[in-house]
């Protein structure tokens, strides 16, 4: 059963990833990305990571993919997208580099000799009274990793402020726009 779930999800992950890079329409790419992300969430569930799987669905498969789709529809790029043909050697070179990188990583994985050494220094994954390991994870997050937690909070604030500043229509100040709107409203009412 475990093997069946793994191979079905692995096939879905790889098919989705190939669909992302092959699809001509960015909307199709985003939907293939969704397939990959949901399949990875299933693989997390299989590895005693229920909370991570839930976060994967909520943050990645919902928020990030919806953000992608929102930007795609906002820009309307599928109409304007040119047929992207780079240098003919570029695609071949990229695939060769990819195969080389894959074989390098597989050599590293070979034999899986890194899964050794000290075990469970910060808390074991699952036990009978905490099968979803929410409690263990929260304890580790708010004790061992509390500084990293605070710094990521700062990072999120910076990212939100930065994206708002970047995405605001530059060249038009909001005060000027609102003043124009008010004058237009006045004219409309007159």
């Amino acid at each position, binding site marked *: 059963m475990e093997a069946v779930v793994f191979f079905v999800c692995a096939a879905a992950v790889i098919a989705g*990833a190939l669909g*992302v*890079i092959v699809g001509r329409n960015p909307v199709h790419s985003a939907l293939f990305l969704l397939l990959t992300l949901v399949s990875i969430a299933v693989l997390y569930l299989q590895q005693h990571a229920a909370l*991570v799987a839930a976060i994967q669905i909520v943050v990645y498969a919902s928020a990030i993919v919806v*953000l992608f789709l929102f930007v795609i529809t906002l820009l309307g790029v599928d109409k304007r997208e040119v047929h*992207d043909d780079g240098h003919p050697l570029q695609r071949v070179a990229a695939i060769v580099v990819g195969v080389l990188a894959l074989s390098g*990583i597989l050599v590293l994985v070979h034999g899986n000799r890194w899964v050794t050494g000290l075990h469970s220094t*910060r808390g074991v994954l699952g036990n009978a009274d905490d099968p979803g390991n929410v409690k263990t994870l929260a304890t580790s*997050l708010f004790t061992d990793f509390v500084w990293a937690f605070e710094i990521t909070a700062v990072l999120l604030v910076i*990212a939100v402020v930065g994206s708002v500043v970047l995405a605001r229509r530059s060249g038009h100040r909001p005060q000027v726009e609102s003043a124009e709107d008010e004058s237009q409203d006045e004219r409309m009412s007159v």
Partner: protein
Amino acid sequence: MIALSYPDHITATYYLILAAILFTIGAVGLLVRKNTLVMFMCIELMLNAANLTFVSYANAMNDISGQVIVFFTLVVAAAEVAVGLAIIIAIFRRRQSVSADDVDLLKG
């Protein structure tokens, strides 16, 4: 040697090989595609491969730290997507295009 016959138990090696393949597909896509939105999706694929590796090692070592680090990766990925898409929108306003070939100058 990595046994690829039909297994009765899925070990961490299978997940690691899957993560390696996923990472490679993302890297090749990043090199091949010109559409910046699709390039961003390829970066997400590579981040997910790294997350899958973390969760696999957490499971293999029976240690919670790997799963905690996945949380931080998710937060950084969300921040990256928010800022990156804002940059893409700003570029699109200026150039009317999201192709990476149109933004090969540092000049605005």
